[in-house]
C-alpha cells in the first residue's frame, strides 16, 4: 500500500520439511538486510512481519490477504514451495503488491502465471536442469532414469530435465513417480537399476532425496550408475552420508564458501542462525536489499514505481553476480555447478561443496516470454 510506510512480510516454513531451508533463517536473512540497509527508508523505520505458511497454499493465501488488506504490507518474501508462492502471488497480483519469491523452484511465476508484481530470485527448475543435466549429458551420460516426487515441482523438474536431455542427444529410459514423503525407496531403486540407465536423476527434494540416495547406496546402485540430485540444498547435502553422496554433482544459486564476500556474509548469518545459509537464505537477503534500494531510489513505496525501479537497476551483491532483473520478474544471475565433497576432502561439517564451474546466467535460465514482458 502506498502510504510511505514500508512493511515487509516474510512467509516461511517454520516447522515443516523445509524449515531448515527457509524457516526462521529466512526471517533472519530479511532482518539482516533491513539492518544493513539502515533500518529506515522514506524517513520511517522499516517494519517487518513474519509467519508460518505451514506449506499450505490456503494458509499462505489467508496470511497474505490479511497482511496486504489489513496490515499494510507492501511486499511479501521468503516463500518456499510453489503452491505457497502461487497463492501469495495471486493475492498480490489482485491487490497490487510485490511478491519476492526466493524459495520456490517452479518457473511458472515468470511464465504461465507471470504477473507484473512477481520477482523470482535465487533459482528455478530451468536453471537447475540446465546446470546439472546438460554437462552430464554432454559428458556422455546419455541414458537417464527419473525418480520423481509426484507433486508439481517434481513433474516440473523432470519435464525440464527431460527437455534438456533430449535437446542434447540424450534419452530418458523411464521414470517413477513416488508420492511425496515416501520413506522407502528400495523398490524404485530396483527399477532404476533394472533400467540400464547411465544416470538416475532424483527429481525430488528434502528428506525424499536423502532417503532415495541412502537406498541407492545401500542397494549398490551408486556403484553402477551416477546419481544426480536435481534439487539439493545445503542442509540436505549435510544430512547425507559423505560416503554415499560424495562426488554427486548439482546446481546451486549460491555457496557460502565461494569467496571472501560470501564468506563474510555467511559467517554473520551463521552467528545469528546457528547454521550456514542455504541459497534461499542468501536470496532472501539479496532480494530484500534490492527492494529497499529501489524504494529509496524511487522515493515512494508505490508498487508500480518501485517495480519499475527494481527492474531498471542491476542487482549486484555477494549473491547476485552478473545479474539483471528482467521485465518478466526473473532475476538472472550466475549459477554454480558444484560437487559434494567426499569425506576426506572436508575440513569441517560446513565444508561440503567444491565449485566445478560458474554457469553464466544466460546459459542457465531460459529466455523471457513475450507475453510476460512487463516493462
Amino acid at each position, binding site marked *: 500500500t502506498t502510504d510511505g510506510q514500508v512493511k515487509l512480510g516474510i512467509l*516461511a516454513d*517454520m*516447522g515443516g520439511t523445509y524449515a531448515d531451508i527457509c*524457516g*526462521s533463517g529466512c*526471517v533472519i536473512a530479511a532482518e539482516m538486510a533491513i539492518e544493513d540497509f539502515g533500518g529506515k527508508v522514506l524517513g520511517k523505520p522499516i517494519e517487518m*512481519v*513474519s*509467519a*508460518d505458511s*505451514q506449506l*499450505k*497454499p*490456503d*494458509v499462505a*493465501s*489467508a*496470511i497474505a*490477504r*490479511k497482511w496486504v*488488506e*489489513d496490515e499494510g504490507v507492501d511486499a511479501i518474501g521468503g516463500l518456499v*514451495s*510453489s*503452491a505457497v508462492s*502461487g*497463492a501469495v502471488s*495471486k493475492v498480490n497480483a*489482485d491487490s497490487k503488491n510485490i511478491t519476492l519469491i526466493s524459495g520456490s523452484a517452479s518457473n511458472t511465476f515468470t511464465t504461465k502465471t507471470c504477473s507484473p508484481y512477481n520477482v523470482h530470485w535465487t533459482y528455478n527448475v530451468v536453471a537447475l536442469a540446465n546446470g546439472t543435466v546438460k554437462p552430464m549429458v554432454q559428458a556422455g551420460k546419455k541414458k537417464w532414469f527419473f525418480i520423481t516426487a*509426484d*507433486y*508439481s515441482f517434481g*513433474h516440473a523438474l523432470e519435464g525440464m530435465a527431460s527437455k534438456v536431455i533430449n535437446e542434447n542427444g540424450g534419452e530418458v529410459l523411464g521414470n517413477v513417480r513416488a508420492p511425496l514423503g515416501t520413506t522407502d525407496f528400495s523398490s524404485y531403486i530396483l527399477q532404476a537399476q533394472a533400467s540400464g540407465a547411465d544416470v538416475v536423476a532424483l527429481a525430488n527434494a528434502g528428506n525424499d532425496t536423502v532417503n532415495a540416495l541412502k537406498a541407492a547406496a545401500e542397494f549398490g546402485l551408486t556403484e553402477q550408475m551416477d546419481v544426480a540430485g536435481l534439487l539439493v540444498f545445503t542442509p540436505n547435502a549435510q544430512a547425507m552420508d559423505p560416503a554415499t553422496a560424495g562426488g554427486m554433482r548439482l546446481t546451486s544459486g549460491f555457496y557460502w564458501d565461494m569467496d571472501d564476500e560470501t564468506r563474510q556474509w555467511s559467517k554473520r548469518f551463521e552467528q545469528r542462525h546457528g547454521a550456514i545459509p542455504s541459497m534461499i537464505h542468501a536470496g532472501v537477503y539479496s532480494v530484500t536489499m534490492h527492494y529497499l534500494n529501489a524504494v529509496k531510489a524511487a522515493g515512494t513505496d508505490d508498487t508500480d514505481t518501485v517495480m519499475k525501479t527494481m527492474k531498471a537497476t542491476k542487482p549486484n551483491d555477494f549473491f547476485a553476480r552478473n545479474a539483471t532483473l528482467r521485465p518478466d520478474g526473473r532475476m538472472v544471475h550466475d549459477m554454480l555447478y558444484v560437487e559434494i565433497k567426499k569425506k576426506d576432502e572436508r575440513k569441517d561439517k560446513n565444508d561440503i561443496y567444491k565449485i566445478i564451474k560458474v554457469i553464466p546466467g544466460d546459459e542457465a535460465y531460459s529466455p523471457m516470454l513475450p507475453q510476460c514482458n512487463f516493462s
Partner: protein
Amino acid sequence: MNNMKLNLFLLALALLAPTVLYPVFLAKVLCFALFACAFNLLLGFAGLLSFGHAAFLGTGGYVTGYLMINSGLTPEIAIILGTLAGGLLGAIFGKLAVKREGIYFAMVTLALAQLVFFFYLQAPFTNGEDGLQGVPRGALFGLIDLSNNMVMYYFVLTIFVAGYWLINRTVHSPFGQVLKAIRENEDRATSLGYDVNQYKWLAFVISAALAALAGSTKTLVFELASLTDVHWHMSGEVILMTLVGGVGTIFGPLLGAGFIVTMQNYLSGGEMGNYIHIIMGAVFVICVLSFRSGIVGQLMKFKRNNF
C-alpha cells in the same frame, strides 16, 4: 429459553465483530465453525466418529471453485452445487460406512477419504498441490459484488446461521430423537422397527452436505481450493476442534473452531511461529488433563443446562 438468549447474543456479536476484527479472519472462523458443527452432528448426536470429513469439505471447495472459474455461474448456485456434491459423496460414503461400528466406522471413513484425496491429487483439473487458485468470488445473484470483504463476511454469516439453524433443528427434531435412541441402544431401536442404518445414513449425508457447504464457502472467501482441505490432517483437526470445544454440545464445536483458528492465526505470525506445534500440542494436553469435557462442558458444569 436460555439457549435462545445466548444465540441472540452471539448473533449480535457476530454482526458487530467485523467493525473491530478483520472480516476475512472472521469468515474463516465461521467456515470452520460450520464444519465443526456439521461434524459434531455426527459425533455428538449420532455417536459416529468420522475420520474422513475432510473429503466433504474439500469436495465442496473444489466443486465450487471449479464452477466459479469455469462456468460463469453465480456464487450462490456454485455453493449449492458444491454442497450437493458433498452430500452426494456423503451418500456414497455413508452407504458403505454405516454398516460398520465404532473404530471400524472411523477407519472406513478415513480410508475412503484417503481415496478421495488421491483423486484430487491426481485429477488434472485440481492442479495438484497448487490447488485451484484465483477463484473469483463473483456477484451474489449476479447483483451483489462479493469482492468486498465486508459483504463477503455477511454472506458467510448468513450461510453459517442457516447451517447452524439446520443442525440445531436436526438435533431437536423427531429424526434427532430417533438418532439419540440409536446411539443409546442400537439393538433396541432395531427391535422397535427402526432401520438404524438408514437413520445413521441420513445423519451422515446431512453432516457431509453441511461440511461441503463450509468448504464451498471457504473457497469463495479465500478464492482458493487446495489439497489441505482434503488431507487427513483436516479430518483430524475438526475432531480436535470438536473435542476442545466439547462433544455433543451445540456451542462446543463453534467455540472449539473459534479457539483453534484464532490460536493458529495468532501463533503462525511473529515470535511464536517457531513454537506453533509445541504450543498447540501443549494446549491439547492441558485441555485433556484439565478440562476434559471441553470448553463448553466446563461452562455447563457451572450451569447445569440441558439443551
